[in-house]
């Protein structure tokens, strides 16, 4: 096994560059090192000006998503030894503006996420003395998969539709909307449908399926979107048949 590996790291320093450039670094490559360890080695030992986001190092915080050899990856879960002798090319996530080096601007996603109301919506809260909202294991199972999303944005980076049409509300926001729609305690499905059934909502998706493929938590956003298309289509049919019915 090689003792070191070459990393080609994208740099963007807005005060001196107007395009991405690449800088090569030779870093140690022990068996247990992930790409993030390599970046931290650069930051600590070679060039302290390299900027990137990270926090938990264990696939929970969703901060360290980057393009690794052209694929969106969590760098804390991508082992250097999987790339043989290298080199490994590390770039900021596709489809997002770059702020500096490997740091991208994610406000667009944050605004879309809050638009779909990713929280439990109740028409009326029941009195505290009536206790908790109980759920059966089957009711939990209905949405649990979608609740695993860590907002790492690998799905947005993999989605060519989002790259071409940034107005598209995108995979994670829709999957998280479904997470609450399918929750037995939630009553906000009608409110979310107003946003999700717009052109830039679910119908923007043409089912490329890349979001599901790159998701590190097996959330299956593509599945969430297709299931929601079926729900929205059935709701439209129902509103034709029973136009006086409330949503």
């Amino acid at each position, binding site marked *: 096994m090689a003792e070191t590996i070459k990393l080609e790291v994208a740099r963007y320093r*807005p005060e001196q560059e107007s395009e*991405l450039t690449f800088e090569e670094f030779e870093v140690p490559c022990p068996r247990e090192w992930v790409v993030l360890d390599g970046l931290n080695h650069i930051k600590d030992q070679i060039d302290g000006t390299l900027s990137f986001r990270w926090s938990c190092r264990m696939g929970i915080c969703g901060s360290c998503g980057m393009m690794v050899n052209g694929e969106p990856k969590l760098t804390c879960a991508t082992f250097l030894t999987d790339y043989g002798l290298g080199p490994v090319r590390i770039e900021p996530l596709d489809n997002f*503006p*770059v702020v500096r080096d490997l740091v991208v601007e994610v406000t667009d996603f944050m605004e879309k996420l809050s638009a779909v109301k990713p929280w439990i919506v109740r028409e009326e809260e029941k009195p505290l003395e009536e206790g908790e909202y109980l759920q059966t294991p089957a009711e939990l199972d209905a949405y649990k998969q979608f609740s695993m999303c860590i907002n790492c944005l690998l799905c947005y980076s993999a989605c060519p539709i989002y790259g071409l049409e940034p107005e598209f509300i995108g995979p994670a926001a829709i999957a998280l909307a479904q997470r609450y729609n399918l929750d037995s305690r939630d009553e906000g499905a009608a409110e979310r449908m107003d946003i999700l059934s717009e052109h830039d909502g679910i119908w923007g998706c043409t089912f490329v*399926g890349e979001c599901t493929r790159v998701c590190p938590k097996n959330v299956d956003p593509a*599945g969430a979107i297709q299931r929601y298309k079926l729900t929205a289509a059935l709701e439209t049919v129902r509103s034709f048949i029973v136009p006086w019915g409330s949503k």
Partner: protein
Amino acid sequence: MSDHPAHTPYHPRWLRRRMSTYWWLRRWRHLTFISREVSSVFVAWFVVYFLLLVRAVQNGSAAYAAFLAWAAHPLVVGVNLVALAFVTFHAVTWFNLAPKAMAVRLGGKRVPGVLIAGSNYAAWVVASAGVAWILLRG
């Protein structure tokens, strides 16, 4: 928020990268996706072809014979063969994707995707066998 903020010490100058026009040629998976999208054109072609056939049948035996002669032209046969390949690709990818859209639960457990796709294929085989029986019995 402005897309192109001026560069000041207090506001970063973001770098916006454009997707290449030929992004779909770079990966095999993307090319497969675009082929699936293009296959819709051939589905539409088969609908048009079928409508032309119905019109020819309606207009009598002379019109029908003319339609058959046109349909036997090598160019039309070639187009139909390409269309058949694309429509088959369209159908197969459609059936393979069906489990994503259908979350069927039986006895508290989600039905495996293989069974949902399998039932779609089974329905396809039954429908094709029915059509073949109608065409070949006489």
